[in-house]
């Protein structure tokens, strides 16, 4: 009789627990997509109560954050990305570099918040000045949205970090050219040419870029001066030397091969065969 009672009680308990569990799962399914991010205190406070195990707490939160931000059913899930990765995980373990770049990628790519992503990468680099990968990623993020001058500044920051590869200065020069400051870009490619750390292949790239950009810069300067001459005189100059006489150019440039640029005085257009030759 006692065994029967115990078995009955056990069966009732198992059944009750199973029904209750099913009910909880059902309620959670209904709430799916509306789960709020739990209040997460600043990493400074968590560090204080971690009793010497702050790096492990940072790992735990990093793993949790990866799972949380991989759940695309969560509504409004990007509100606290910067807080989770920057204020909590980075405060717990400031030298933990993965959360900076992962948080930044989530912010820029998914939350479409470039400034917050860059802030996170800046914070990571300020705390880890040897991690050139952080400004390097920031540079590509700026490139992606067409902010080339900013991208060049980030690649410069990355290139100056200890142990960074010299190729980062090639990216800086490339971004400067994309930003439109051709003379500055030529100067930066000359830096690449002068850097003794670069090998022959890198020097060959720099030489080609200097040649190409020199032609582009000369043509742009000439076209600008021709346009100014046309506005002043109502017609384009007969010869390019007229631009020097008019004070619009200090001298008439020659192309990288030492040949004069071809000038069509009827249409006021200047061209070069050197820009089609990549050396």
């Amino acid at each position: 009789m006692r065994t029967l009672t115990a078995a009955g009680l056990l069966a009732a308990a198992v059944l009750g627990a199973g029904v209750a569990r099913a009910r909880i799962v059902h309620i959670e399914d209904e709430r799916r997509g509306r789960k709020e991010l739990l209040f997460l205190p600043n990493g400074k406070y968590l560090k204080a109560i971690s009793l010497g195990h702050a790096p492990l707490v940072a790992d735990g939160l990093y793993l949790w954050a990866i799972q949380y931000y991989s759940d695309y059913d969560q509504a409004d899930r990007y509100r606290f990305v910067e807080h989770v990765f920057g204020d909590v995980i980075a405060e717990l373990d400031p030298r933990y570099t993965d959360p900076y770049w992962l948080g930044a990628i989530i912010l820029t790519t998914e939350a479409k918040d470039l400034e917050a992503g860059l802030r996170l990468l800046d914070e990571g680099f300020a705390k880890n000045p040897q991690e050139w990968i952080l400004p390097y990623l920031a540079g590509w993020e700026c490139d992606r949205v067409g902010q080339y001058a900013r991208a060049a500044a980030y690649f410069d920051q990355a290139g100056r970090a200890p142990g960074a590869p010299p190729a980062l200065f090639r990216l800086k020069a490339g971004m400067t050219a994309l930003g439109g400051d051709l003379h500055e870009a030529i100067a930066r490619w000359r830096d690449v040419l002068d850097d003794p750390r670069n090998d022959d292949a890198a020097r060959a790239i720099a030489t080609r870029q200097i040649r190409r950009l020199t032609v582009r810069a000369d043509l742009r300067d000439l076209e600008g001066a021709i346009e100014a001459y046309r506005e002043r005189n109502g017609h384009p100059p007969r010869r390019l030397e007229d631009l020097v006489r008019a004070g619009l150019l200090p001298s008439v440039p020659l192309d990288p091969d030492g040949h004069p640029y071809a000038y069509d005085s009827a249409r006021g257009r200047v061209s070069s065969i050197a820009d089609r030759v990549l050396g």
Partner: protein
Amino acid sequence: MRAVAAIALNTFREAIRDRILYLILAVAIALIAVSRFVSLLTVGSEVKIVKDLGLSAISVFGLLATVFVGVSLVSKEIERRTVFTLLAQPVRRWQFVCGKYAGLLLVLAASIAVTGAALLVAVALKGASPWGLVPAIALIFVELALVAAFAVLFSSFTNPILAAVGTAVTYVVGHLSWSFDLLEKRMPGAAGRVLCRVLHAVLPNLDRLNVKAEAVHDIALPAGYFGAAIAYGVFYSLAVIVIASLVFERREFV
């Protein structure tokens, strides 16, 4: 000295017969082994997570071993009345306390050697160099040796439950002692500030023995830090054991 060694060896033998120690060791090693599968959940950082989890497992399970074994070391002898037989021999009370403590240190050393070796193997299997973790593991031993000294002290004058609470509180306070420094700056009265300063200086500062983050990130410790940290732990533990011996000297068993 022979008496101390004999008690230490006996304590060690008795502790390694205790099943709870094996359970603690097994859980610690299982945790280190399982950490290898964390790569399924993470983006990068696999080696870091294995190192963090391993060092914390060594530390936390070492603390559990210290508490479970340490707090009943002296009180169990009193409870079982075996202390009378022992002290009837030509054994001084301080030798009894020192022997018990030395035995506990042997248990800790063995447990940290096993879990530490498991961690080094786990890290090496991940393709990373594990040797940077050795100073952190050594300082975990020093930290636990200090906590073990408190466990013996509490065990020498109170029952195991209170001794366990006291040892756990020591560990917590040891990691929060910086807060007295912080509190001192906010204290309005001079007496309060002096009290905070004294507590900050006197209470064990276990964070000084915590170099887990540096070891995981392969950051070199400042010159002389490792030696100074070991000296701090050794001298502090010595002071606590001296106090434990004095307390035990004055204790009456009837």
